[in-house]
């Protein structure tokens, strides 16, 4: 269905590429022009994406604004794009965060501005493409394409250990993707064997009946690939390194969108393709999520580096998301998606905040600060709002997501939910402790006495996020109602297909038992007669 009869998704996806072409024509000495152009393109991009939101039809569960053309006909690869209630808000988050990233790089990035902005725009296209692609090969292309600009962002504009972090990020993620590619190819051939059609179309492959024994392995391959991206414990160690070394904008994008690719991947691909295996893996995923929540929080607590602390808090927050998604009920999944958005906003804001203070003091060590609130009251306010959102105080967006996830999880597996809820205590501990040591206490370091409060550009960068924290905290309905149809269809579809597989398994077991017990059973019935 495409209600606009216009390839709006293609426009939104590839508009940044157009920006890249323009940037290429600008002299690299004109740094402010480059920055301005990049900003203009990302802002226009955001407005271009608004029709997706405005014309989105809440009532249907299916794909909307669909574009479907053959691409490589001989192999059954199609150019198939579409958006539903699950991807809509993540797409919006992407187009919303990118201008903010350009803004926050304004003075932070001083070398190779042109290349930097080109990377940002390329990254935006890749992320959007991965979110709207409905063809597995198309998805895979965008998925891998995301790595390159991100790799460069970390490796060229990063901190002192940037090369190690960039290589680790790239190899870790790429290694995971290889398994997914294998799994995709298997599905492709298996589908041909069963239906006689070569296709990578995800909506077609959903219908495929994958034998249970194979399903586990295919599912595992997808899971590993996405779990690295999320990242789930114990596959998370690339994240703190990448975050600490990445420039501010890189961290914001990484936390805000790239990590969501993992959780989105679970929802879009792994879970609906392999319902039976997903169902069987539920306890494992839930366990790892809960470990992630508590482990991430505890490790965050003792970090001396602000950025690393926020990075570990991401592990904890994403643990909540995963727990919600695998609760497999309305509250859990909607809460999980909501928490993805929240994490993009609150953690994005926290990374911006850390970046702003780093730009002033060239250190991120908590012990180098203290009493900053006295000299930077506006900064202190934004920092407090982001902190509250991160610790999920009711009235902020964080609470909505966390509460829904807890409700969902409590219905599915109460014991895990109890442990997950305890994470809220540690969350408060590490965030407030950091806030106290950085912003409160006596202003006893002379270097900190002359710190300037936020300038107008920085306020403009943070203000939309701060406003969203409260809007999403008090009026979550605006966001959740657009997900309802898709999510409830997802659950219904998942459950019915799970039932089907479960019956198959029952039958095959039954047949086996019948085969084994056939003879004596016949004998005994004869006796009865």
């Amino acid at each position, binding site marked *: 269905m495409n209600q606009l009869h216009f390839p709006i998704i293609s426009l939104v996806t590839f508009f940044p590429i157009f920006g890249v072409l323009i940037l290429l024509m600008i002299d690299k000495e004109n740094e402010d022009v480059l920055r301005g152009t990049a900003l203009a393109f990302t802002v226009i991009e955001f407005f271009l994406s608004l029709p997706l939101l405005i014309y989105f039809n809440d009532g249907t569960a299916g794909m909307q604004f669909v574009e479907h053309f053959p691409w490589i006909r001989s192999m059954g690869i199609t150019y198939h794009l579409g958006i539903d209630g699950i991807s809509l808000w993540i797409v919006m988050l992407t187009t919303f965060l990118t201008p903010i990233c350009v803004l926050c790089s304004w003075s932070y990035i001083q070398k190779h501005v042109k290349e930097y902005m080109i990377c940002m725009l390329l990254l935006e296209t890749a992320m959007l493409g991965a979110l709207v692609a409905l063809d597995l090969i198309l998805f895979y292309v965008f998925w891998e394409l995301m790595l390159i600009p991100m790799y460069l962002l970390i490796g060229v504009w990063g901190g002192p250990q940037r090369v190690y972090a960039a290589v680790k990020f790239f190899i870790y993620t790429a290694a995971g993707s290889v398994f997914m590619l294998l799994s995709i190819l298997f599905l492709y051939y298996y589908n041909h064997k069963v239906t006689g059609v070569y296709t990578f179309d995800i909506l077609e492959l959903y219908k495929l009946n994958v034998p249970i024994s194979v399903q586990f392995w295919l599912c595992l391959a997808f899971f590993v690939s996405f779990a690295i991206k999320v990242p789930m414990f114990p596959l998370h160690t*690339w994240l703190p390194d990448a975050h600490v070394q990445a420039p501010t904008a890189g961290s914001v994008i990484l936390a805000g969108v790239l990590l969501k690719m993992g959780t989105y991947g679970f929802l879009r691909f792994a879970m609906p393709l392999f319902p039976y295996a997903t169902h069987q893996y539920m306890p494992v995923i839930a366990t790892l999520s809960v470990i992630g929540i508590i482990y991430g929080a505890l490790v965050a607590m003792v970090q001396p580096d602000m950025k690393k602390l926020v990075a570990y808090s991401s592990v904890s927050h994403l643990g909540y998301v995963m727990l919600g998604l695998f609760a497999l009920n*309305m509250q859990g999944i909607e809460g999980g998606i909501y928490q993805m958005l929240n994490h993009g906003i609150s953690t994005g804001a926290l990374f911006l905040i850390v970046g702003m203070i780093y730009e002033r003091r060239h250190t991120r060590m908590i012990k180098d600060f203290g009493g900053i609130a006295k000299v930077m*009251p506006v900064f202190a306010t934004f920092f407090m709002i982001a902190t509250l959102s991160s610790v999920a*105080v009711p009235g902020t967006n964080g609470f909505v997501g966390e509460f829904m996830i807890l409700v969902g999880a409590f219905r599915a597996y109460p014991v895990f939910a109890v442990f997950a*809820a305890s994470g*809220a205590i540690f969350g*408060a501990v590490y965030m407030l402790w950091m806030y106290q040591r950085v912003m409160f206490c006596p202003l006893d370091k002379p270097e900190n006495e002359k710190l300037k409060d936020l300038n107008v550009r920085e306020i403009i960068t943070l203000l939309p996020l701060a406003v969203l924290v409260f809007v999403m905290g008090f009026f979550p309905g605006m966001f959740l109602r657009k997900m309802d149809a898709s999510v*409830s269809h997802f659950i219904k579809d998942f459950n019915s297909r799970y039932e089907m597989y479960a019956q198959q398994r029952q039958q095959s077991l039954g047949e086996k038992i019948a085969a084994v017990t056939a003879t004596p059973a016949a004998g005994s019935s004869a006796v009865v007669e």
Partner: protein
Amino acid sequence: MFDKVWLIPIFPIIGVLINGLLGRRIEEINKDIVHWVACVAVGLSFVLTCVLFFQMLGLPPDQRLYEFTWFDWISGGVLHTYVAYQIDPLSMMMCMFVTGVGFLIHVYSIGYMYHEEGRYYRFFTYLNLFMFSMINLILANNYLLLFLGWEGVGLCSYLLIGFWFSEEANAIAGKKAFITNRVGDFGFILGLLLLYTQLGAHGVWSLQFSEVFPHVHLLSPSMATAICLLLFVGCTAKSAQIPLYVWLPDAMAGPTPVSALIHAATMVTSGVYMIARSNILYSLSPFAMGVVATFGALTAIFAASIGLVQNDIKKVLAYSTVSQLGYMFLGLGVGAFAAGMFHVLTHAFFKALLFLGSGSVIHAMHHGLHKVHSHADAQDMRNMGGLKDKTPITYVTFLIATLAIAGIPGFSGFFSKDEILWQTYAHGHFVLWLIGAVAAGMTAFYMFRLVFMTFFNECRAPDGAAEHLHESPKSMTVPLMILAFLAAVGGYLGVPKALGGNNRIEHFLEPVMGLGPEKLLKKAGAAMAGGAHHLAEAAHGAAEHAAAAGHAVAGHAAAMAEHAGAHHSLFAEYLLMGISVAIALIGIFIAYTMYIRKRELPAKLAESFPFLYRLLLNKWYVDELYELVVIKPIHGFSQLLWKGVDVAIVDGTVNGVARVVGWFSGVIRYLQSGYVQSYAVSVVLGTVVLIIYYFIKALS
């Protein structure tokens, strides 16, 4: 008019927006606008509450419930929660005194905080935000919105305790308050989840009071107990009970009006309010009620014992608050919900007055010490004395509040405290009654110790600061006088039958408390026809407790006598009253002896019992214990997780895999060296191996 209830929380939030967003500019232009905005906002809420209150009084008691659904909040699937308010006797009573006392304290703060440069607006922003949260907590018609208020007031408490954040101790105290409350909220939210899912299993997916309470009989008795206990965990943090009371004494780091408003009169009583609101739920679980009563009584005496020896004027009052909150829980726990709420009300008057009075004293001391450039502690009672003549209004009002808290007949505290003690005794909890009575004696002692040390004898302020001590401005003394009036006469709202009154407050709250066991039984009976087996059990549990909670329901002396047995007559009630008054007088007398007549006694006693003295002075070393048992181990464990597990094992494995791959590649690199000779050698070797292989194969 009831549909305008949403305006009550709206006024303060408008104040927050004005002062929060523009406050810095406004303060530069004219400081007065800041406090005008804040005070008017709360004043309007108070006026509107009064209007609604009296309108509600015009309705017959059984129709005093109005629910207003404002907008949809968190919903998804079967989960539906709303921002919705409820007008009933309980919420209106709370809202009346919260906005009323809140307004007085806002006015008081003008005088107290006026000298704060550059953050005057922040103070009033937080104060208004607190009012907004507190009103939401009270008016909410469901548990989730109540929780919004619950955490919201905690947040404001955190912000206000750390208001002077440049002192590390204040910042730490704020954080401690927030985190301790988070521990409690962990229990609270689990209680909510359990309640929600358990009722949901019976098809009632709701957190709304008017949906939940008529169906709580569907819960199995063990589940009801679990839910009640989990919710009570939240109360132990928010209302400072054992074991999570530790944050409240430290919270005195905040400005004194904050201590009065948040940490004495309103926020800390929200736990009491929550249990009183959930009285039907608690009535299902005698065990949970017993726990509540026991913890209340223990807290009452434990905190009082610490209060005996503290020297900081605000610390004494803080422990006194903890102790008084204990009484309230004792009342709730024995089923006297209305009596508990009555004590909330009178306590709000006299304790707010005590704190504001102490604030006036500190204000005077501060200025006096400032004048002579002394760095002596303005809150240490050892530096005070003789203030009776310097600050006469403060002295008189303070004395009234002290008489009230000490339980001297005629003052408000006497009626409410005595009601709780009497009910405790009447329900057969003799030990708990004894604890409460002893704690009452200690209360009288430490409060009069405070009065004598502060207002009597000679002034001990150093460096001639005594010359500069003077009474506080009007904006501070007028609220004191109003509160003094309320603290004196507030008790007449609930004069018990035994003293010729008719316990109005209990009758007033009846529609809320009265929904209890009797109607519940009927409901259960009707539902039993449906065939659910455990309903019978629930009804049975309710019936068992009906007598205990039944008192709150009926409030008739007859029902009471029936339960407590024929022995407890009016005579018993008079006797107990006499005993508690005697205990209070003894406490006062001892204080008089030690701090007026024989002032060398305290030091001697401290020398004679050094261990006990140090134990009490150091608050039973509970903070140190928590540090040792909870905080240090968690911190150490986290360090271990980071350095030992995350860096060494998890990341070590990742890097190890990378290294192994690198090493392996390095080894097999020799296979492709590019030298023709080495390739030739491998060809020859391969041929030889093959020949040998086929040779052996042919042989065998």
